[in-house]
């Protein structure tokens, strides 16, 4: 095993672990100002939306809204089911089925 690779992996593990761990461990010790708490409460919606948008609207890195973008097409029935039922498993099932269908067209 190459020593350089092990060194890189150790560095990577710190670079990924610290941003995950420090805010939770430090901020949970303090009484946070109400305005900051309000702001933190909006993070989930903002994060989910920020992660999702490029995954379905720019899967190859550039914005693509058309029939050749399978992730975009599959997300239409997913959104309909999710808005209507708010059911996670049903939405995932519809997404997988839609994708299988699109891959075999």
């Amino acid at each position, binding site marked *: *095993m190459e020593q350089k*690779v*092990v*060194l890189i*992996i150790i*560095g*990577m*593990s710190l*670079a*990924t672990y610290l*941003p*995950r*761990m420090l805010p*939770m461990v430090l*901020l*949970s010790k303090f009484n*946070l100002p109400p*305005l900051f*708490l*309000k*702001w*933190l*409460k*909006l*993070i*989930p*919606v*903002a*994060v*989910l*939306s*920020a*992660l*999702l*948008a*490029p*995954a*379905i*609207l*720019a899967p190859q*890195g550039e*914005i693509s809204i058309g029939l050749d973008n*399978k*992730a975009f097409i*599959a*997300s239409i029935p*997913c*959104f309909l089911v*999710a808005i209507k039922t*708010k059911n*996670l*498993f049903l*939405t*995932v099932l519809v*997404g*997988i089925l839609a*994708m*299988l269908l*699109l*891959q075999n067209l």
Partner: protein
Amino acid sequence: MTYGNFINGMKKSVPVVLGYIPIGTAFGILANQQGLSTFEIFLMSSTVYAGASQFIAAAMIASGVNAASIIFTVFLVNLRHLLMSASLSPYFRKVPSIIQAILSFGLTDETYAVDITHIKEDMPSASFFAGLHATCYATWVLSTVIGGMLGNLIPDPTRWGMDYALSAMFIALLCIHINDRRDVLVAVCSAAFSLLITAMSGGSWNVIISTILAATIGVSAELWNKRLFLSSSE
């Protein structure tokens, strides 16, 4: 530690597991092709545990980039977890620091999405997070190692689009989290910023910048509304 909540956390991991199996296997295959040994793949997945970063790092290691650049790139790609970790902190106030330090190791985009939905729908429970995080972690490590051992024997499992399960999961969880007009505003702003940044500069800053901007817009809109309300009731 309560057994029931732990099992419940394991159950709620199903969509994440469905997505991690093909992506993890694909990572193992790719890393194997790029010259990483199965043990190195195991070491990376079990200590780093970050999908996008591992793909980027494997490619950079293969092309001989120096260690410091690789580690710094991975750091930038993962800065978005600062915000997720911060937003979970109010719900972990009664959890001992050492347990927080262990649970936060399992924080990924996908486990975060399930974590916050659990917080929204139930009494937050450390055992739930433990069950969810442990299952997703084990799935990731196993899938990447199996991919590394299979190497070229099987085709890329993401080519059937199974990894779309994760996008479908994000769609469902986003809809569950949108309750009022302010949430819609935050979601639309965040999506627009994220798309723009991805299209202009590739994706490593998009999540952190668009989240900060969109959450700030959301709080400002609320304060603005309140001021209008107060001034009209005078």
